[in-house]
């Protein structure tokens, strides 16, 4: 399943250059990637814990998919734009989303996960597949602006079955839009295996639209970085859309509400745990001597601080002002909203008064 993929880092941590996807692997880069994985993983763990204690309503674990996410996010320029699903903590992290900001959504105080203008990342939607079209439209806007930018559009294997992802590919090809689609094939859409979505590798879908595609090892952070960078560059230069299938695995439950024991084997999990993207990176860093104990300790301390900050920010966070729910339904005043808000204000006043 992972044999026919582009891979720059073997499971044993050996680097193998690929002529089409050149990448300069400096110790600084390695340390950056290492740090990003560690911090992403810490937020993931803390968020699961916060959900368990009732502070969050839900959490979508990312364990196992950090490699592709962090690699791909580093392939983006600050001026590029991204669209993702809920399960892309690695990308959120690299783009500079504050996890506290993100957790507002899972806390239930806000639908908005961050300010897209600051991080160059559209707020995500839970409606599967639908943002693939937004990506293409945004890329068509870039084209019309003549800007030197491109879009990274991420979705899951399940999403590839939706009509919207198809129409996104059709539009991207028709208008030669500067967008790179990145499918994280994590083998499952909740309880449904990827074999129910397709019997050919997902990467082969692209050719039918005249879009080039690449299948990569999604647990190899360097492959994700190298391949995505080449394809984003190509898109920026007018080369048009491209498609990446990253073969990876969701090792946690679909969400904290899920019970994966109902549908999958422990053995599968063990196999993929042995391909862990962090372990692989660590092995490589050890090989090249880029992982000194001081650095490791520093990152661990940073992760501890992050965890503590998260817990403090979320625990017992106050509920919002009820009337806040009427804000921003429209950009301009709307009679029905105004009236409903006034009625609610009156009602709340009565209730308080009584």
């Amino acid at each position: 399943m992972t044999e026919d993929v582009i891979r720059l880092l073997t499971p044993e941590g050996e680097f193998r250059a690929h002529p089409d996807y050149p990448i300069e692997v400096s110790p600084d880069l390695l340390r950056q990637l290492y740090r990003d994985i560690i911090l992403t993983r810490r937020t993931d763990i803390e968020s699961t814990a916060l959900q368990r204690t009732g502070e969050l309503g839900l959490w979508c674990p990312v364990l196992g998919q950090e490699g592709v996410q962090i690699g791909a996010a580093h392939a983006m320029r600050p001026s590029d734009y991204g669209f993702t699903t809920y399960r892309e903590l690695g990308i959120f992290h690299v783009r500079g989303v504050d996890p506290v900001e993100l957790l507002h959504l899972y806390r239930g105080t806000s639908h908005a996960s961050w300010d897209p203008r600051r991080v160059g990342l559209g707020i995500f939607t839970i409606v599967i597949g639908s943002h693939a079209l937004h990506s293409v439209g945004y890329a068509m806007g870039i084209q019309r602006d003549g800007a030197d930018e491109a879009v990274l559009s991420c979705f899951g294997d399940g999403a590839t079955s939706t009509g919207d992802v198809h129409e996104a590919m059709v539009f991207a090809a028709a208008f030669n839009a500067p967008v790179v689609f990145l499918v994280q094939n994590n083998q499952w859409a909740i309880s449904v295996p990827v074999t129910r979505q397709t019997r050919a590798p997902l990467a082969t879908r692209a050719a039918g639209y005249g879009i080039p595609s690449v299948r990569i090892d999604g647990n190899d952070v360097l492959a994700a970085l190298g391949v995505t960078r080449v394809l984003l560059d190509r898109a920026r230069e007018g080369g048009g859309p491209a498609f990446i299938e990253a073969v990876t695995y969701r090792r946690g439950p679909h969400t904290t509400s899920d019970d994966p024991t109902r549908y999958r084997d422990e053995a599968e999990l063990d196999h993929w745990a042995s391909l862990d993207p962090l372990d692989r990176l660590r092995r490589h860093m050890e090989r090249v001597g880029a992982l000194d104990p001081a650095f490791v300790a520093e990152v661990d301390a940073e992760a501890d601080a992050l965890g503590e900050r998260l817990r403090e920010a979320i625990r017992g966070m106050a509920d919002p002002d009820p009337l806040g729910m009427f804000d921003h339904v429209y950009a301009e005043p709307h009679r029905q909203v105004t009236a409903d808000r006034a009625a609610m204000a009156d009602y709340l006043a009565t209730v308080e008064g009584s």
Partner: protein
Amino acid sequence: MTSMTPTTSMTMVQALNAGLRRAMEGDPKVLLMGEDIGPLGGVFRVTDGLQKDFGEDRVIDSPLAESGIVGTAVGLAMRGYRPVLEIQFDGFVYPAFDQIVTMVAKHHYRSGGITPMPMVIRIPYGGGIGAVEHHSESPEAYFAHTPGLRVLTPADAAEAYVTIQQAIASDDPVIYFEPKRRYWDRAEVDEVSPISGNPWSSRVLRRGSDVTLVAYGPMVRTCLEAADAAAEDGVECSVIDLRSLSPLDLDPVVADVQGTGRCIVVHEAPVMLGMGAEVAAEVTRRCFFHLEAPVERVGGAYIPYPPNRFEQHYLPDVDRVLDAIDRVTAV
């Protein structure tokens, strides 16, 4: 209920599961399709164990595509099957809206009566469970406004057990809205008696002389509780469960309002163009000279379903209903 028929205490989830099982046992043409309804048993476990017992050909885990689920079900129905579909959450029915409105609703009509479209589309709906966006919506008015569909929503487990089977037995397509916040409420379910009764009618659950409360699905329990509370204050309320939103049976409501002269409709969906608008317009037309106060509508504000930390304020509750009772009795 006073008879000797043995009953079982069940949650609504269990009642739906039992009802589906019985329908599948009774008719080999009944099959289920949806996302995660197989080994997982659905995210709410409504189909728990059914794939194991009826096989993968009759309990079909679909690809992730709602238009695909409904569209292929149209073909299955044309072939003589009776598909029962699960849409995972209310907010994910929209990708299938085209198939539902242009095909499911219209096909019997457009075929000149030759091709029936027996299909049930189950949709867990409504708020109150602290869910994330798109998991708490009440889109029933879209469907009730669409001729060709039937729209049914059970208020409790006993109703769910019976009406899911009646929906499946109907030769017309039925949008079956399951009030997810009531999924874990229990009721006594009679699994022994033959299924009977007309699901396409309203149910009078309580009679009172002062105010008629009209609700359906999740708000029925809320209205029953409000009626209890009002009674303590000396205001006697009728409570009527519409049950079927299309066809809409207002006869019992009209009869009751002719006595009470006051009517309140309660639902979670936005008031603007919600079911309450139709009930108010039609009850007023038919009870014009009996009404002491205008029909009052209690429901969602004209805003998208808010983040869940707002939902206790967004959703109608007992206090909001009592407030409306105060208003109509003050006129």
